[in-house]
């Protein structure tokens, strides 16, 4: 009898520390996380310090030869800047353009549902389809150029794809709906009576936006920026399909793919992939740092 009581109280004490059978629910998630993330990631890090003999010979640095190559080889290193040149403006544009649209779409009006659907639709397309569409629509022989030529508005086709612009278009098409959805939900978390209060206190629309909405929305803008930035930073299909893959859109993921697919250098490919993550992390930390300076409490609404 005393044994039975002892186990009961042990179970009770464990439960108080949060240890009980419901913890078993974590097992599937942990297995998946370890198998699909922790192990491959560690394996990848391991690969980076096993450079090929050719790499070691060319760049020196012993087991860190891949890292030396990454920073010394301008062809590889410059891809950081090229990726940033695409991802930063694209993320910034997606966030900034979403704000006014989401603001307008807070109100009820006829056709709101249709407009929202149209704005969000591209999210379902996928990058490859978007790239294909862009080639057909905006290519040299595309509908847009043909129409403009026929109308006599231009003398020769505009170069809208197979360059920086093409990738930018594709990043906006896929990133904007995402940013718009996120910002809409952040906006709906702001208690509408705050704006009404500001109105009765004499604030015009700009003052209401600048003094009330913007400060409350700012943390959401930061989060949205981070997510759309990460999305844009890892751009690959469109950089290859509608970009200038060896020139202005020689992004990091393309470099990693080149090392992996064309040079069969898994170790270098892993190094580039890892550095890609490091650069993203730097931007994310910088934005989160800025965000921590802002008000982060309740926004009064449903959250």
């Amino acid at each position, binding site marked *: 009898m005393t044994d039975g009581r002892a186990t009961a109280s042990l179970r009770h004490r464990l439960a108080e520390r949060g240890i009980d059978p419901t913890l078993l629910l974590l097992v599937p998630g942990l297995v998946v996380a370890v198998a699909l993330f922790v192990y491959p990631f560690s394996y990848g890090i391991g690969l980076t310090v096993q450079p090929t003999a050719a790499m070691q010979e060319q760049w020196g640095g012993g087991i860190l030869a891949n890292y030396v190559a990454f920073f010394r080889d301008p062809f590889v290193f410059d891809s950081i800047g090229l990726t940033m040149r695409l991802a930063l403006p694209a993320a910034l544009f997606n966030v900034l353009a979403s704000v006014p649209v989401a603001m307008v779409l807070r109100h009820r009006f006829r056709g709101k549902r249709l407009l929202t659907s149209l704005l969000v639709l591209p999210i379902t397309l996928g990058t490859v389809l978007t790239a294909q569409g862009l080639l057909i629509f905006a290519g040299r022989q595309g509908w847009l150029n043909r129409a403009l030529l026929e109308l006599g508005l231009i003398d020769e086709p505009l170069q809208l794809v197979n360059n920086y612009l093409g990738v930018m278009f594709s990043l906006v098409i896929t990133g904007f709906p995402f940013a718009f959805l996120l910002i809409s939900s952040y906006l709906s978390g702001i*208690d509408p*009576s*705050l704006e*009404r*209060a*500001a*109105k*009765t*206190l*004499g*604030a*015009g629309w700009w*003052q209401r936006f600048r*003094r*009330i909405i913007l*400060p*409350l929305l700012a943390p959401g803008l930061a989060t949205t920026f981070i997510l759309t930035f990460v999305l844009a930073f890892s751009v690959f299909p469109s950089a290859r399909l509608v970009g200038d893959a060896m020139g202005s859109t020689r992004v990091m993921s393309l470099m990693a793919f080149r090392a992996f697919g064309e040079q069969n250098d898994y170790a270098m490919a892993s190094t580039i992939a890892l550095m890609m993550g490091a650069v993203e992390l730097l931007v994310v930390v910088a934005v989160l740092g800025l965000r921590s300076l802002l*008000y982060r*409490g*309740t*926004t*009064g609404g449903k959250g």
Partner: protein
Amino acid sequence: MSDFESLELRGVGRRFGGVDALAGLDLTIKAGEFVALLGPSGCGKSTALNCLAGLLPLTHGEILIDGRRIDTLPPERRGFGMVFQSYALFPHLSVEKNVAFGLQMQGVARAEIDRRVRQAIALVKLEQHAKKLPGQLSGGQQQRVAIARAVVLEPSLVLMDEPLSNLDAKLRLDMRTEIRRLHQSLGLTTIYVTHDQEEALSLADRLVVMREGRVQQVGTPDELYESPASWYVADFMGYRNILPATVVSVSGGGSGAEAVVELPGTADGGVRLTGRAVGALGAGDQVRVAVRPDDFSVVPADGAATGAAIPGTVAVVEYHGREHAVSVQTGDVMLHARSATPPEVGGAVRLTAPVERVLVFPESLDAVVPLEVAA
């Protein structure tokens, strides 16, 4: 401070998708007055307030200040202060900055802002909390900030939308006193929306009772309390006993006539009660009889009673300090009375009320014409 003589609402109405949320509201408010709009949720009182604030456009009528139309102005140019049920404090701004917001919008000089903000915060006794964010304050303190934020602008009109309904009972009483004190010391013209009759009676100089978007009665607390125009208003004014009945006979005509009514559903074929008719009544009319619990006396079943008496059985006795609330079961209905001494539960009693305190109203509410349209 109130820089106008009178505020006039003429036939103000607001339709939402074919339904009148507010219709034909006529009201004249003098400077310095405290007017309460009273009614259950959905009666149009908040709609009226939002229309006044400019947060909802009117669909009918006009609003004038000293004969000048203001219903065409956007809310930010009306210069009214508003206190919201949810407080609507800016969560990212400190108490000080919340209060300063309106003054900054007006472009008041910084030194002047500091002075007036300090004054307003002192007025609501929140000096120690000036630097805190709203989230760090209790509900009562938050509502005090909201009030300070509205009155610091010295608005010509303060609109309050159920400001106390999110507070607990004790705090509500304290804040009620606070609001009354502020009104008395600042003399700001105030329109106060509530569903709580006690709040309305204790705060307001004048009450507007509303039902389904229409005004039922306008008057001083005293007028409404003593002579409600309909059983609906009576219900709001604490006439807890509202009983359906049939008129047996009416002596004299029109309002104030003495009416004898029969209550259905009571034992031995109906109890007859004599009361004062409010509105024209005839024999056979369906009516509602209204009696306040304070006006019922509980007498023993075998004791002497003057006039008509309703027999019943004591069902519940609640101790309320100086008196007891007594619920008496009579037939199907439960009647509420008060008694200085507690009667025995289960005992047979009779309830009597003076004739002039038994009000007999026509059953229909639609025929009701407000006794007084405007002051």
